[in-house]
């Protein structure tokens, strides 16, 4: 009976954005750490595809130098996309998503937490690895830095957009392919500005305009998309 007495003494819970955010990020990271293989698979896919390109188009250093940033960006895009289907689907399938929606914490909090966790296990490793891949393509140090900076700003946008599409496609027929059809067209601006930053740097121009545009995109996405994701999750549970 002491359990009940203790509960009765507790104040009614107050939800908060921060508590929801840290709850979601801590839980998703814990789950990711239980199966580090999945994260490593995404990274391995990224490295593998980026390494296949030179074999496909030929090892001409000039050509590799030119296509390098774009190829690495497309690979990052596909790799970020790989881990999207399970972002909400696992919680949806085991009922956790219902619990999250009904929790006193405001939805944008834990939604942002989940997106942040997704970025930490997909976008961040790709950003860290990108200079290594850039070396394979013979990119210079300044270009490598621009590439990594662009990825650091751009991959969160991919996670945000991807989360919205992933929530929209919850419970839909045609899973992965449908998600590709929804998400990849929306990724276009990120791809253009991201690859543009490194290419401008490689061409001896400043990468700053591209990076600022990418940053503007990231700010707009961070402000707006979590709410779209919340709406999509609500629709999915209806």
């Amino acid at each position, binding site marked *: 009976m002491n359990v009940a007495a203790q509960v009765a003494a507790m104040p009614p819970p107050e939800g908060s954005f921060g508590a929801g955010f840290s709850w979601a990020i801590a839980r998703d990271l814990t789950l990711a750490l239980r199966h580090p293989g999945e994260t490593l698979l995404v990274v391995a896919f990224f490295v593998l595809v980026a390494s296949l390109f030179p074999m496909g188009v030929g090892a001409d250093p000039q050509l590799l130098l030119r296509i390098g940033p774009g190829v690495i960006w497309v690979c990052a895009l596909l790799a970020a996309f790989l881990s999207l289907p399970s972002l909400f689907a696992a919680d949806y399938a085991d009922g956790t998503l219902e619990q999250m929606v009904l929790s006193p914490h405001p939805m944008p909090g834990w939604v942002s937490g989940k997106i942040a966790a997704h970025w930490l296990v997909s976008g961040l490793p790709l950003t860290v690895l990108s200079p290594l891949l850039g070396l394979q393509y013979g990119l210079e140090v300044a270009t490598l830095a621009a590439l990594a900076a662009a990825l650091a700003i751009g991959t969160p946008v991919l996670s945000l957009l991807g989360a*919205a599409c992933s929530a*929209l496609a919850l*419970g839909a027929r045609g899973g992965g392919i449908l998600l590709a059809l*929804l998400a990849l067209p929306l990724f276009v601006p990120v791809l253009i500005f991201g690859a543009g930053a490194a290419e401008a740097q490689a061409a001896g121009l400043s990468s700053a305009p591209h990076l600022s*545009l990418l940053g503007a995109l990231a700010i707009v996405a961070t402000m707006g998309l979590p709410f779209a994701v919340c709406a999509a999750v609500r629709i*999915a549970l*209806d």
Partner: protein
Amino acid sequence: MNLFFFSSPPTFFRLAGAMAPWFFVLAAVLAAAGLYVGFVVAPTDAVQGEVYRIIFIHVPAAWMSMFLYFVMACWGAASLTFNTRLSAMMARAIAPTGAMFTFIALWSGAFWGRPTWGTYWVWDARMTSELVLLFLYFGFIALANAFEDPRRGDRAAALLGIIGVVNLPIIYFSVQWWNTLHQGSSVSFKGTSMHIAMLWGMLLMALACWMYAIGASLVRVRSVILEREARTRWVRELGPRASAAIAAPGVTKLPG
């Protein structure tokens, strides 16, 4: 006047059925006039020759493709905010027509590009964003039909449409920016002065496209309403007369 009077499916079903043929007739008349002006009245272009006449289908189709996406997103937003069944059905009904106009714009653009730029496809800002737009339409249609519960598809697709409409300008400007960095070769009409007949031809064709799009959407929304409300009383009461009243002769003889 009750604003939501026409938003009851049975009322709208009958209204749409009565209006659709007139929109098709208007579309045909306007298209005939537009083509007459475009091919007979309008003079040959000094720079491009006869081939510029593709403009009369290309530009209206491109306009329609973008307008229709916008209109579709607005219907979707209305369905989400007011939770009206009909708005979502309208959004669903517009999508295939929008995709068709996007396809026409891309296709005619390619066949205009070949003789003028020497290539079927250029990664030009307009054409690239038009291509992305086609994918957005496909995504919308696929998502709307991906669920067992049609209402669920309606709402998910509506939200996707809103995200898409916010993204579309960003896509356009990003592509334009990217393109200007790569190459400066974008053909425009700045060099040639547009003849007044050309403008009229384009305007008439654009109106024809509008009328056609409205007519096609109304016909499609009628099918959507019927399928969605198949178990309601008013549709069943429609039943005995349905094959005569709704279907055109010959259609009911289809297998099944």
